[in-house]
């Protein structure tokens, strides 16, 4: 059992509504969504396609703003930030991991991680970070020369380079085979358990929920269930 006593709240999602489009074509992506997340938690937002989970993640990541309601992360009211403040927030607070890795194809693994130096002042050492994800030998490879798992690990190294307060993952294993997916998840769980990073993943894979401290289940844009997992399972122990 993980000891999570005395942990501070880092995320508060309060009565958030998000609508897309206008008139008849308007879609309700998030409908009065509320939840909180504590520092150092490994959180999985679970739901089927169209449940509104990616919308939640985008708002957490400062890439989208709610139609109403508030989003507070690390003491900052993200929902009322302007464009400039949002850029700074994304640079300083959040590390993003994408389903399709989103590496810049014309930069090598090393350069993709080192790119962060152009964004934040105290970026981590790209060599060290690549080593931490086991890719030190692939530093000069371009994304097209690496497997999906390797690319995703570069993506994690890039997210970590900013030393973010929270790491957000949008289906980070969605494009990977199960074995590679385990390696990636293990890395994320390690970050949470050993380095006390807050990790929030969005997935439709219910098996991943077994590894999480908190599971937020969504359906049709609403939060259906928030469940605390007293004894999260190490990734390796889950039967995938």
């Amino acid at each position, binding site marked *: 059992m993980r000891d999570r006593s005395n942990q501070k709240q880092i995320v508060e999602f309060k009565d958030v509504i998000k609508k897309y489009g206008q008139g008849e074509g308007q879609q309700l992506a998030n409908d009065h969504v509320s939840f909180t997340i504590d520092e150092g938690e490994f959180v999985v937002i679970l739901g089927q396609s169209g449940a509104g989970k990616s*919308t939640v993640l*985008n708002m957490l*990541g*400062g*890439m*989208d*703003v709610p139609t109403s309601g508030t989003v507070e992360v690390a003491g900052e009211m993200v929902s009322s930030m302007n*464009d*400039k403040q949002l*850029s*700074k*927030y*994304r*640079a*300083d607070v*959040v590390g*993003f991991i*994408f389903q399709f890795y*989103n*590496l*810049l*194809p*014309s*930069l090598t693994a090393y*350069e993709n991680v*080192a*790119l*962060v*130096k*152009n*964004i*934040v002042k105290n970026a981590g050492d790209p060599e060290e970070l690549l080593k931490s994800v086991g890719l030190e030998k692939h530093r000069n490879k371009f994304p*097209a020369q690496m497997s999906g798992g390797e690319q995703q690990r570069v993506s994690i190294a*890039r997210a970590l380079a*900013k030393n973010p307060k929270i790491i957000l993952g949008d289906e980070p294993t969605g494009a990977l085979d199960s074995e590679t997916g385990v390696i990636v998840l293990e890395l994320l769980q390690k970050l949470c358990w050993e380095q006390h990073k807050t990790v929030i993943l969005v997935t439709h894979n219910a098996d991943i929920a077994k590894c999480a401290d908190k599971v937020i289940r969504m359906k049709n844009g609403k939060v259906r269930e928030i469940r605390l997992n007293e004894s999260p399972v190490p990734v390796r122990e889950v039967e995938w």
Partner: protein
Amino acid sequence: MLSRKMRREILRNFGQFLSIFILAMLAVMLFACMKASNVSAYHKQKDMYLVTNMADGWIYGEGFSEEALEKIRSLKDIKDAQRRMHVTANAKEHDQAQLEVYLMDEAIVSKPFYVSGTEFDLSRENAIWMSESFANAWNLKVGDSFTFVYRGIEMTKEIAGLIVAPEYQYMKADKDLDVVTKNISVIYMAYREFPVKDYVKSMIKKGELTLEDAVEHSELVREKLEAMEKLGIARESITKEQLLKLVDEISEEKLRQMLPYVEIIFTTDGRNVQEMEQEISDALNGDYAVLCDRDDIAGIKVMADELSQHDQFAVSFPTVFIAIALLVIMTSMNRLISRQRTQIGTLRALGMRRSKIILHYLSYSFWVSFLGAIAGLILGTYVLGDFIAKVFRAWYYIPGWSVEMDGSFLVVVVLIVLACTGATYLSCRKVMVVRPAESLRPAAPKAGKKILCENLPFWNRLGFNVQYNLRDISRGKLRAVMGVLGTAAGMMMMVAAFSSLTTIQNAADWTFEKLQNFKAQIDFDGDVTLERAQELREQVDGELVQTAAVELSVKENAKSTERKSTVLIVTEGKNLFRLTDEKQRLAELTPGTVAITKKLAEEFDLKVGDAIYWHLYEKNDWYEARIGLINRNPNLQGITMLREDYERTGATYQPTVLYTKDADPGVDVRNAKGVLAVHDDADLRESFDVMMQMIYLVLGVFLVFAMVLPVVVLYNSGNLSFNERVKEFATLKVLGFQTGAIRRLLSLQNLWLSVIGIILGAPFGTKLLQFMFDSNGDSMDYQVMAGAFEYFVSGAFVLVISLLVGFLFQKKIRRLDMVETLKGIE
């Protein structure tokens, strides 16, 4: 990191960025090559004006006294002034080259520009200073003796120095159609070096100077005559011999009154010369013929016209290239940025500032256009510009003329780079307004909608290729516009280049088959008498023609600003020197009327029946004439009248040329007294060809640029089209389409765009050419001719380029990796 990303992506999209590079380079290159020689010319001209104290104004008249000069000097805004005498002499040998001889006793204004030998020094005896160009053409050196003849008086002087005359930046002999350096020189010498006594005596012997003339010109002669009359010798009884004896007794210095100063040249403190006309007229009691400023001096004006033409080209042609470059940039960057949509989303998700991302994408076109502009600047200035300056130095004389840059070069580079970068900003902005979360996802495909063509009743009968390409054009309108405008500009330049050959051929036929109904032209020297000229005319059965400089106006005694300096041609109406109307048809001059050339008629808004006023340049009397014909001549603008009408004004007929149908008038005519030179048909045609060389040069450059333009835009348009449709082509390949079939699909669209471009660009070709010929100055009036052949050849040329560009994609299509492309991996 971002700079590495930029470099790699530029290399990956090499074709498109190369197009931008080339267009930016060509635009700056065209500007620089036209401007660099101009900047240097203006600079060196200014230096020469400073050193020589170049005149701002010229007053011509029948003779100016010391008092007249002092009055001019005392005017408020006059800085310096001096008098000088100008005569046109001929070399004794050296093909009897034309010599513009300036005699002076002080050198304050418009001094010769020293090149080598000794500096201009009026105290030096027996010395002349000669044009460097002429000396070089005849291999004459400082220290050599040179003999020349003026009205039968032979003078042999030592060449003391070689110079450039600031008023003769352009000079051609009267007998030449264009510059032939060995046929003309300017000579400066001290007035006292002119053997005035010999001259006066020679004139008396020839009967050209009578007692009355002598009395009129010399107070001393009058005094002597009065003394003789007191002694009982009647004026009527004085013989030629007595007159010669009388002249002998007068000193050279006193006799100079017989050869008066006909020019006053002056500098002002910056005031416009024409504004001073009233004050000058009052100072001289109206006793002068013409007041000119620098714009009226042919040797300066032709040069100024040439430089002004270059200035116009330097702006107009690069504008075409820049317009095309902007289209290429916008289409290329639109595509690049839309392909990088998710990358932009990622960078924004990582927290990169919007401004930084925009700067990153702006840097693509910034660097490419900047490097292109710098390459264009260097190549345009130091390669092409230097070549142009070298070519023009054969026509114009400005010491030290080479190539130089000025602030305008920086402005053009900055403008071009800013325009290219600005075009990229427009492309960037579209993606930047999208929220990062949205830009992480690929853009939603454009909603499929019917295009206008689908409403055509025969749409369903159109083949797959046609329907496919029509839809594609509707999807990429900007790309299509770029293709059309690029080929239109290429077609325009190509039509201009090809039509120029026809136009010049037409001008040659017009001149030699219609206007010149003669086989040889006999030039008279300044000494020929009317009787001698008429004897020669009888000998060769020819027609005498007088050409003279005149001023023209629609008002009698008009102000200088309302006058126009031009040429008067007086013919005997024997139809050897012919006229053509505005449509190049032969036309006759009605007795009692004058013909005026079309350009002049348009300038003064004149039509047949209107009155015009003219006066000979060196005389003050104005005459009225009625326009009977508006004629057109490619190389000679002015008014033409019949001898009988000219003589009716009381003016003396002084033929300058004799035309004959006899191609070889014989040695006795060539060597006859009064004959300066004889040119046969071949000589005249050669002279015409020399004149056209410069035009061929400009058009040769044109043709090269005209070929580059369609290649660049069509390749770029094809490349964009290929990349936008690469997945579709991969699908077609999977379906079993052959490489050739896909290439044809791609080429078809380029072919359409080319055809539209050809149709749109064709009419502007002749307009461009007319603009080029018109900017050549007032003396030329070329009628641009373009027939079906020129349009066909130009159009075929563009189409062939279009087809060849299609083949550039053959390899790309063959190597298209269907699996990878359809997986969406870049």
